[in-house]
């Protein structure tokens, strides 16, 4: 769980048909905590009986305490969080926003930062660019999108010879091998975007002999919707139903089951829960559990994972 601030929506700006920028400020114009590039906040959306909490990367200048900005891509097949932001949030609204946390910080030991963004994955890099500029460190940004229209970050990026835009519909797809070849020793690579891009960069880096410790990625995803399912809680004997557009964590919260959490995106490990019995298949959508832990089905990340099968009993 995290400390929250009640902030006012100070600006809503459509960047592309799918992506909207939101600016939050303190209602009394007080300074907000500064943060580090790559940090995110958790935004609360009271949607009827449901309390949605989605994590969004901060895109504004980390050293600017006058406001926080996020860019939200509308996902019409998602669970409804981004749709809520796009259709229900207006200037003047007050929303609960967590203090920043960073699961995707720059490694400032790097001799050079190579930032690789796919689509809406540009968001954490927008704040990191401010930090890199402040630290005066060498960098190179590669921004890939299918179409120019999808590249919402274009409007927010500074003009720089070190920023390269790859629009596949215009025939200049990103060549990872070329990007990774010839970088100075001590370069760190950061990738954020679709899981396919992250896998491609990770694989290409491994093929080129890069050590794992210099490759950083963040797949900041919301929990995917799916079929409804039920879980049993061993300690209380309760049965909890999880709806199609609800995460297990949200269902537990709705049933007043206390659970620790931080990122709600399967990355921080805070909500890890023991599985006492599993007759069926856990759909692990997190980035926290190892391959062996997933196969073992003894642990589950309630913020992201779903279940199909006959019985799932949790250590709660």
């Amino acid at each position, binding site marked *: 769980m*995290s*400390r929250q601030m009640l902030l006012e929506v100070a600006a809503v700006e459509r960047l592309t048909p799918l992506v909207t920028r939101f600016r939050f400020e303190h209602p009394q114009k007080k300074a907000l*905590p*500064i*943060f*580090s590039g*790559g*940090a995110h906040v958790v935004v609360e959306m009271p949607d009827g009986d449901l309390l949605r909490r989605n994590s969004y990367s901060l895109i504004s200048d*980390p*050293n600017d305490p006058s406001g926080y900005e996020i860019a939200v891509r509308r996902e019409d097949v998602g669970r409804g969080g981004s749709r809520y932001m796009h259709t229900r949030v207006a200037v003047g609204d007050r929303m609960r926003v*967590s*203090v*920043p*946390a*960073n699961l995707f*910080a720059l*490694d*400032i*030991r790097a001799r050079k930062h190579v930032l690789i963004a796919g689509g809406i994955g540009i968001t954490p890099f927008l704040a990191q660019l401010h930090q890199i500029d402040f*630290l005066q460190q060498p960098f190179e940004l590669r921004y890939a999108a299918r179409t120019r229209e999808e590249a919402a970050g274009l409007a927010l990026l500074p003009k720089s010879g070190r920023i390269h835009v790859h629009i596949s519909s215009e025939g200049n797809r990103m060549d990872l091998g070329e990007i990774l070849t010839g970088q100075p020793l001590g370069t760190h690579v950061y990738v954020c975007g679709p899981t396919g891009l992250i896998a491609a960069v990770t694989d290409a880096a491994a093929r080129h002999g890069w050590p794992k*410790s210099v490759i950083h990625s963040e797949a900041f995803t919301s929990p995917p919707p799916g079929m409804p399912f039920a879980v049993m809680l061993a300690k209380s004997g309760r049965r909890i139903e999880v709806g199609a557009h609800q995460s297990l964590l949200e269902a537990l919260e709705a049933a007043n089951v206390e659970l620790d959490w*931080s*990122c709600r995106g399967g990355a*921080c*490990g*805070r909500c890890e829960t023991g599985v006492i019995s599993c007759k069926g298949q856990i759909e692990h959508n997190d980035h926290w559990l190892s391959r062996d832990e997933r196969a073992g089905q003894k642990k589950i990340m309630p913020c992201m994972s779903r279940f199909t099968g006959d019985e799932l009993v949790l250590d709660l």
Partner: protein
Amino acid sequence: MTLQFNDETFRGDYSYYNTDRAIRRFPFPFDRDDYMYSVNIEPHPGGPEGSVFEHRFDVDEHYVSEMRDRAITLDEDPLRCQSLPHMELAGWDLLEIIMVSKSEDYPDLFALHRDGNRWHWINRPLGIEQRFTFLDPTTLPCGPMEYITRQTQGDFALLDEREGNLWMDAGMVTSQADWSLDFDVGMNFFEWHAPVPKAKRLGVFDRALKFLLAMRQGQEYRRLNWTMTVNPRLDTSPENYHKWGPEKRTVTPENVGRKQHLRVELQTFWRLPRSNAIAFPIRCYLACLEDICTQPKWGRRLHRVLRDIDPALAEYKGFAVNQKVIVDYLAQFDDGAPTSAGIFPDR
């Protein structure tokens, strides 16, 4: 009430002493009659008024003398303060948090005036006045971490977060319980905790690391840790073991009450905003057994804890050699009555 600062030493003639007020607010670490490791972490600050938990950085009667002792230790061994190059930003984070906290919590002792990045810092107890440019190291007499921690009680470790781990990449360590920054610098969380017995098997460190990594800025936490030290010596470093190690053998039934000190660390945890590093201040408090036993609950409880402690922990905490003398001394304060819950003395 304006604080009176003791004129005292932590070496040589050991003129260190606690006033009655300092004894009453001593952070006695045992909340029950036995002891085993736990991740005993709670939010900080928020303790009772007047306690060492009240403010973000506690300033007490030992402040001026402790800073004098730190300067002596640094003079003899500059490696007690180290910062790897990438940690300078974290040093500025720490400087800001300490200056802001102290000027707000002790306005009669400290003042901070900020005009953008042009800062003006006044430390009245140490007679320091400094105008400098925030984030410009050339405007301070030394690096930001060294500058502020020469003016702040307790040791400081700055931990860089990367690869799902924490790395001790900077620190100011002159009042440590037998560990060495020069040895630990650059190590990760599991490496620098490797000497702690039993805790690995109990899974304490896995849980603690997971907790720390998920910590956000604005959520300060604290825990108490403890050990035992003969004589009120702040610098019990491995580097100087030849100075304080032999003193363990000077404890007798006659002098144990004055010589044997309970050493308590108030450890706090801070997520730093600009660097995303974690600051780990370790504030050391010393009280001799005689002082502790002025509080009947503490005398009673300390007897039971030290009598029944796991032998490996008595060894690790550095008092196995004197355990019998200590326990025999404490026995006279244990009337067999039950003790109340919690760490605070009975009223």
